[in-house]
């Protein structure tokens, strides 16, 4: 091992053959490493060798680089001449000969080897103590697709991919601001995974960025294969069932978070981007809330809040009512429940646990099974659980309803990691209420509540803005206020001054509508800088007007025609 490191730290030798030997010894037993030898077209005819890894490079790019290095044409003959005379061969190739957009000069073997493994192409030339790294990253990539885990009805359909550059580009496409920063670092001693920390300067609190970077730099691990590796190592409450880091596949969600003063962490090779800090409520909010009418948005948000409460508490409440507090059930309902349970041989708690586990089994099996067989699971599941189990007298029909309701509710929570954590904390609640009744339920609920209140996410209270109560942030909690009303950024942003200066939209005054539009176009005309656009707008207004007139005349003509016809008819009758 030390032998390898020694070799890696070595500087490049002037003799190409020694260099080639060292690289070969480092990269031996690798079928996918390609070595290509060529001669420069200058007077000396220096020998050069190119190394790259097949599959992670774009072969076209490599070929273009080779073309630059091997051919002389009238266009670059001067350049070739200069390389012959200049002492620093690599530098002059970089500046004069190569067309590659990001060619770099490498001084050590280590840089070169890393370049090769990252998907670039490393070129060494005889009589030069420096090598060249041509960017050649390429290979097969998944294209941008609709995110599988977070779908919306209205809203952008693009989702992150495994390629980090594509991902940052998707966000940059949304925020074209000079203040948007994408800082890079590399984590994982073996995987050398690229990590990008993104934020908007001026909006984000600087201390937050510092904290994120500090926590990331503390990570020492050999490999990072998914963003959860990082999530677990930067979490504030490592043992908590609640997740304090938001993960998302949606670039629009990341963009929105950046605009609120949060920090996004991109990890290469995974479509899941991390967003910090995250509040509890963020996991219950979907992008749809903001893309639909605010009334609709508020309504569906409430549906989700209710779904959360149902999926957390309904099984426990049913169990505690039927096995401890029968006097709390309305009489008619109590009779119905009792009649359904008449022949059930198990206690309610056991029945509930069995049903919950069967449900989880079905969900897991449906997920793991190959898609064509997946349907079979649901058929078998619904038949066995929904009918046969009830008919056989093993579970009561009420319990089936309760478990189904719980399942459906937990699926309507938009963030799947949050829905998993709710599923988890349901079980202690269920056991507590099945053994101690309402007392156990309340005790366990309070334990969970105290825990949730106590944890923080990157300095932000987890349950904010509900508790601690932040009056300014209430505009985006229970009710999603209309966009023209959300004038400030959330309190976690450094710059929570005015975000927008819109007034409530209203139609122009009735009487002056025509003159108002004229005024606008007049103003535009007078503004010398915007003449062309104003003209365009004017033209479009004109076009619209003429269209309207045309439509009117057509209508009039139709009317006239009808009338004429009628006249004709009446004349005929006479």
């Amino acid at each position: 091992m030390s032998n390898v490191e020694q070799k890696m730290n070595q500087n490049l030798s002037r003799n190409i053959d020694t260099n080639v030997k060292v690289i070969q010894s480092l990269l031996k037993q690798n079928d996918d490493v390609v070595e290509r030898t060529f001669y420069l077209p200058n007077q000396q005819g220096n020998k050069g060798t190119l190394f790259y890894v097949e599959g992670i490079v774009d072969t076209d790019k490599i070929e273009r680089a080779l073309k630059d290095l091997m051919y002389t044409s009238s266009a670059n003959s001067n350049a070739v001449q200069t390389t012959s005379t200049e002492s620093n061969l690599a530098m002059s190739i970089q500046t004069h000969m190569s067309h590659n957009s990001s060619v770099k000069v490498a001084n050590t073997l280590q840089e070169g080897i890393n370049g090769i493994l990252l998907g670039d192409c490393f070129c060494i030339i005889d009589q030069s103590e420096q090598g060249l790294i041509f960017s050649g990253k390429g290979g097969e990539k998944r294209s941008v697709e609709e995110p599988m885990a977070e779908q919306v009805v209205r809203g952008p359909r693009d989702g992150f991919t495994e390629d980090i550059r594509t991902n940052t580009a998707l966000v940059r496409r949304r925020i074209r601001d000079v203040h948007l920063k994408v800082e890079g670092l590399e984590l994982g001693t073996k995987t050398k995974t690229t990590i990008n920390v993104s934020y908007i300067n001026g909006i984000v609190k600087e201390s937050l960025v510092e904290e994120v970077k500090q926590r990331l730099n503390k990570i020492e691990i050999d490999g990072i294969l998914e963003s959860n590796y990082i999530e677990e190592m930067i979490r504030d409450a490592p043992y908590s069932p609640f997740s304090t880091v938001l993960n998302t596949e949606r670039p629009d969600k990341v963009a929105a978070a950046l605009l609120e003063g949060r920090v996004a962490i991109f990890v290469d090779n995974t479509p899941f981007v991390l967003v910090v800090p995250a509040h509890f409520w963020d996991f219950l909010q979907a992008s749809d809330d903001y893309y639909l009418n605010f009334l609709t948005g508020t309504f569906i948000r409430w549906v989700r809040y209710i779904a959360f409460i149902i999926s957390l508490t309904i099984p426990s409440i049913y169990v505690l009512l039927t096995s401890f507090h029968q006097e709390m059930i309305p009489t008619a309902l109590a009779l119905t429940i009792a009649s359904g349970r008449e022949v059930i041989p198990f206690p309610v708690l056991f029945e509930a646990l069995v049903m919950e586990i069967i449900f989880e089994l079905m969900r897991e099996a449906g997920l793991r099974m190959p898609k064509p067989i997946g349907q079979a699971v649901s058929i078998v599941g619904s038949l066995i659980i929904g009918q046969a189990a009830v008919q056989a007298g093993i579970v009561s029909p009420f319990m089936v309803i309760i478990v189904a309701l719980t399942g459906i509710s937990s699926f309507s929570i938009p963030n799947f990691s949050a829905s998993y954590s709710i599923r988890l904390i349901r079980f202690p609640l269920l056991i507590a209420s099945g053994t101690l009744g309402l007392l156990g339920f309340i005790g366990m609920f309070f334990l969970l509540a105290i825990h949730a209140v106590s944890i923080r996410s990157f300095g932000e209270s987890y349950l904010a803005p509900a508790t601690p109560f932040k009056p300014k942030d209430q505009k985006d909690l229970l009710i999603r206020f209309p966009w023209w009303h959300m004038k400030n950024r959330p309190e976690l942003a450094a710059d929570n001054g005015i975000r927008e200066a819109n007034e409530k939209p209203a139609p122009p005054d009735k009487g002056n509508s025509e003159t108002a539009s004229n005024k606008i176009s007049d103003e535009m005309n007078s503004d010398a800088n915007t003449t062309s656009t104003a003209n365009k707008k004017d033209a479009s207004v004109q076009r619209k007007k003429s269209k309207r007139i045309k439509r009117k005349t057509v209508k009039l003509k139709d009317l006239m025609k009808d009338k004429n016809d009628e006249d004709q008819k009446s004349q005929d009758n006479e």
Partner: protein
Amino acid sequence: MIRKLYKLVILMAIMFILTSCVGKREIDDLAMVMGVGLDLVENKNGEEEVKVTAQIARPADARGQTGAPSGQTGEPIWSISATDKSIFGAIRKLENLSSRRIFWAHSYVIVINEDLAKNGIKDIIDFFIRNPELRMRTWVTVTPDDASELVSSLTGLEVIPGQSIEGLFKYSDITRAAPRSQMIDLHAAYLSDATQPYVARLKLETNELSNQTPEQGEMYKNVTHAGTGVFKDDKLVGTLSAKETRSLLLFVENIKSGVSIIPCAENEEDVTTFELVHEELKVIPDYKEGTPEFTLKVKTTGKLVETDCAIGFDDDQKIKELESNIEEKFKKDINKVLDKIQQEYGVDILEAGNSFNNKLPSKWKEMRVNWDDHFQDATFHVDITAEIKSGALLIEPTESNKRADE
């Protein structure tokens, strides 16, 4: 941190396991009582004992098949009874008979036999208030019949008698044949220094025809509302009939509906029916020469729903006449009830003491000790205005035109 977590987990496990589900009883291990009947019986030694009858629902029969097929007997209720010196003693004896734990919280109704009620119901009030399993919103009633029989007779469309008695009370504001007396009201009235308790009265009546053999005539017994039981302290002193109860309810409940039948002016046999829509009572207490005095301002509005008389709703004269007839009739009814309550029973069940206390608290302090005596001496002035607001869908009288043609 990890040790703390382990400790917490172990602590939880110990708490859940060692308590071993204390107090747990599954809903299907309960015998849910739907109604309680209390009778007075004599034992072999000639001592008086309480007989408690519990009407217990069989869920599988009361609801039909909801899950897996379960044994159904076709009998939605199961009635059992036991006697002992105290109610609780009898209830404990009931447990001997029952395969499931008897659960009282869902009881709809408590029926007390009048003989028992005459001896005093203090122990009953105490027991049903003290017991944590029993609800304060249970209906309390008295009956001249056997409470055990009444509790176990099937009534109405419901399969559980308790439920049908609950239904009777639910819609009692249309018939107004009995007050809506719940345990909580009885308790409050018993504790109060100003009012005396009253409860609804139930009776068994045979008035249901068999579907198969209607020619046999009425054969099934039905529970009906039959007025009010009037208490002095905890002892039943008398009853008001269903008709008298209507006037009583004017004082103690919000009236939403009622029916009054008035003979026509032209022909005594023909009648006009007046449906009460809204009735308002304003009590103005006063104090004159050592006796309390009450002015009762009653405002009645209603509509004409049925008439044999030739009254058109546009006929102002006749409508006025009708209104004054109604006023007269109402006044007579109210005075009759007032006389009965004041002179015969001598108990204030009208909450007159309360309104007197509100208006004249200083005088009340002098009178509260012997309020029932003062109540007997009190004078009531009844002032009624009746108004017929609509003739429902008809304005013209329903008259055949054939006669006019002859």
